[in-house]
């Protein structure tokens, strides 16, 4: 593999900028910071609208359609409402922790976007450890959630936080293992390099990996059907029960920003990122991200929430072994047949994925009574 010159010559890996960027490092940094923040905020509003309308239509409702044309201003109205609300802190709360928790939960999500390529080379920092950086940074959000649960001094919050930690720690393993499959094929940890290496979208080369990654990612970001850390019907709202006003808005923002971040990561890793014919690259990226998010909404509408023991069983008995098998198969393919066309792997891997899923479902039945954790 050839490492580009500008990566080798940079004094620090953090300062990698495209060689032809005008105005130097700081302008680049400022520009992309503004772009990322604007992107996250606007996309959050957009996806909240998409989620509510899409879910409404799938449930034979209309969804919000009163505020503005087609209800487009509903997220704005909600944001204004929630910002103007009173900020209530419980009397026995751990005040500092309670106050810091939303910030600590929010900042990693913004930091994830630093390494996501919007188009070729258009990213804040083309780290050569990009995807590892994402896994590392997103694990910090756990601490924020735990602080929220602890700081509220409310048993429902604490239970939600505990569930969240258990889920995230378990699901990080299959998540990382499936990512390794992608890395083996692309030969680089850098997000931009991964996209560049994807002549065939990896969803075809790694169908099992995509499936496992999607499941693990939805569990990681607390999307339904794995949203039992904020299960409204059991835990009122999980870790953010005691939050209101601006701080609640932060948690709401985190939830959707994480969903967007995961959609963007899936787009980059499995759907060949910004690559695509005819349209400009950034538009392809946007379209693919929204499509992935729509699939998340779709699964949310369809599937009922799982129990906590089922959640753990799914992670350890289904996703983890399959991720290992997937990694093993991928490694064998890359080592023994490095030169043949990847289209052969596409067919072989799809067949293997179907066989493995069917076989494992025979061995592992989730609805088979109560499973011991």
């Amino acid at each position, binding site marked *: 593999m050839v490492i580009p010159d500008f990566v080798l010559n940079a004094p620090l890996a953090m300062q990698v900028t495209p060689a032809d960027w005008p105005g130097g490092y700081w302008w680049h940094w400022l520009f992309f910071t503004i772009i990322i923040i604007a992107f996250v905020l606007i996309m959050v509003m957009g996806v909240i609208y998409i989620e509510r309308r899409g879910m409404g239509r799938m449930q034979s409702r209309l969804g919000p359609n009163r505020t503005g044309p087609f209800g487009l201003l509903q997220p704005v109205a909600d944001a204004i409402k929630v910002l103007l609300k009173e900020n209530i802190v419980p009397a026995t709360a751990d005040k500092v922790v309670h106050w810091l928790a939303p910030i600590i939960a929010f900042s990693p999500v913004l930091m994830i976007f630093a390494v996501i390529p919007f188009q070729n080379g258009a990213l804040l920092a083309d780290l050569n*450890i990009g995807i*590892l950086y994402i896994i590392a940074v997103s694990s910090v959000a756990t601490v924020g959630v735990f602080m929220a649960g602890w700081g509220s001094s409310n048993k429902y919050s604490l239970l939600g936080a505990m569930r969240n930690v258990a889920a995230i720690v378990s699901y990080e393993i299959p998540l990382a293992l499936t990512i390794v499959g992608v890395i083996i094929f692309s030969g680089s940890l850098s997000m931009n390099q991964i996209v560049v290496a994807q002549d065939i979208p990896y969803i075809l080369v790694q169908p099992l990996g995509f499936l496992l990654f999607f499941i693990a990612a939805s569990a990681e970001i607390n999307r339904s059907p794995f949203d039992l850390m904020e299960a409204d019907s059991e835990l009122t709202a999980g870790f953010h029960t005691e939050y209101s006003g601006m701080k609640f808005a932060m948690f709401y923002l985190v939830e959707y920003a994480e969903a967007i971040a995961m959609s963007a990561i899936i787009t980059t890793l499995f759907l060949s990122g910004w690559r695509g014919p005819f349209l400009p690259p950034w538009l392809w990226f946007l379209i693919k991200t929204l499509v992935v998010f729509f699939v998340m909404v779709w699964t949310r509408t369809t599937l009922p929430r799982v129990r906590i023991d089922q959640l753990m069983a799914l992670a350890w008995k289904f996703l983890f072994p399959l991720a290992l098998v997937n990694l093993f198969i991928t490694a064998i393919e890359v080592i023994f047949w490095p030169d043949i066309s990847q289209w052969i792997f596409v067919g072989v891997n799809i067949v293997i994925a179907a066989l493995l899923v069917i076989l494992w479902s025979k061995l592992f039945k989730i609805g088979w009574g109560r499973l011991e954790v």
Partner: protein
Amino acid sequence: MGLEFAFWIMAVVMVGAAFAVLYLRNVFHAALALVLCFIAVAGIYVTLSADFLAAVQILVYVGAISVLIILGVMMTREVQKGNPVNKMRLPAAIVAVVLLGILVYVVTSTPWGISTQDPLTPTTMPLATKLFSENGFILPVEIGAVLLLAAILGAIVIIREKKK
């Protein structure tokens, strides 16, 4: 200049957080201070151009170890009892200070053979070659894997409740 600035910030945050681990009354707050200390250590790694290790540090220490410690704090329910000290305070302080003095003396008086080369910056590939190649560290890696497996099994055996 930027590097020095970053180093001093990280150093101050790190030492402050380490003292907070010692002196905070609430054990949960101490665990959070430990997380801050780990993040500062990751920052130090970045200034040493060990970016891969910085990411691994955050992933392993912040993502896994500190979460385990926080879970341990929760499960042992000793949060409100504070952070008491035992009778060894003075001897331990003397030992620590003397050790620090010796270490600082040794570090400052040794002529280090500092290399003039720039450190390798994309460390991922060389590290992988180092770890997994034939004349690299493949045997320690396997031993480490066995160690982790043994640790998991040992932890499960220790913690399991005996069924009557």
